[in-house]
């Protein structure tokens, strides 16, 4: 847990953030150019298979984001440090964005290949449930009346909600599904051509860096919003001094400067 937070604080530094921002832009440009114009189309599906280079990496980032929510929630319940709640909230927001994108991109891919925008297939249904769980998680954060209670309730949902993640991943194996089985994240050698695999790998790296970048920016927003949530009436006296010193020390720890 300590290593995860240290990694996040390093990623949260200004220089790292800027490097990740540039790397994300360059990676996205390369992915789009290679994915659309360089790699040959699929022999069976034709050009529509090119959606794989965004659909699959975004689904991977979705799993990564919800995994971080799970770890940060466990860490919060163990340590009661509010920084972990911020990590979980930031990751959940990005995870929800990626989950919604995964569903929409899958729908765009499914229409020409399956002949339908949506079907109650196990993979699609469990992914939709996953989206609802984490939209619920974000909604819960908005209704809780105190930061401590909000963090505790969210952490519980963050841990319990993660149960759906392995179900989504394994749904194509456990049940009969229209959705194809894993071609890359599987035991044994991948079942796609080398050039496609290389492009997919580039997209995986690009979207993972994009996740790191968005996490860094979102955590900075979280720290600022937590500070701005301190009531004006509490800005004097010893209690405030404690709140401010905690906050500043947290920001020093994560930014390198206050």
């Amino acid at each position: 847990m300590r290593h995860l937070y240290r990694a996040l604080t390093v990623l949260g530094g200004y220089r790292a953030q800027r490097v990740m921002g540039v790397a994300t832009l360059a990676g996205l440009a390369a992915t789009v150019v290679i994915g659309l114009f360089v790699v040959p189309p699929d022999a069976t599906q034709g050009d529509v298979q090119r959606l794989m280079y965004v659909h699959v990496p975004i689904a991977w980032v979705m799993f990564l984001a919800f995994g971080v929510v799970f770890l940060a929630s466990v860490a919060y319940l163990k340590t009661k440090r509010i920084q972990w709640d911020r990590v979980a909230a930031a990751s959940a927001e990005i995870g929800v964005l990626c989950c919604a994108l995964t569903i929409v991109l899958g729908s765009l891919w499914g229409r020409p290949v399956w002949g339908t925008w949506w079907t109650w297939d196990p993979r699609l249904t469990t992914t939709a449930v996953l989206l609802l769980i984490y939209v619920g998680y974000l909604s819960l954060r908005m209704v809780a009346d105190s930061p401590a209670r909000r963090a505790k309730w969210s952490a519980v949902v963050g841990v319990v909600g993660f149960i759906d993640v392995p179900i989504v991943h394994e749904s194509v194996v456990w049940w009969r599904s229209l959705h194809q089985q894993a071609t890359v994240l599987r035991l044994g050698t991948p079942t796609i051509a080398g050039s496609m695999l290389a492009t997919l790998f580039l997209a995986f790296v690009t979207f993972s860096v994009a996740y790191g970048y968005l996490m860094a920016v979102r955590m900075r927003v979280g720290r600022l919003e937590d500070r701005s949530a301190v009531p004006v009436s509490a800005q004097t006296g010893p209690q405030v001094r404690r709140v401010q010193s905690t906050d500043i020390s947290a920001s020093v720890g994560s930014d390198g400067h206050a």
Partner: protein
Amino acid sequence: MHDVGYVAAGYSLTMVALVGYRWHLAVRTRRARQYVSAINGRARIGRRRR
């Protein structure tokens, strides 16, 4: 040819979503920074001092 429309829509939507979310975070940062500035006189975190 028809398939290209789905591909273009998918790639465009992905980029719009990423840029839109980044823009949304920028707006939230600016608002929170203004609020912190109003309380403390200046924003103490999230901005590099030169």
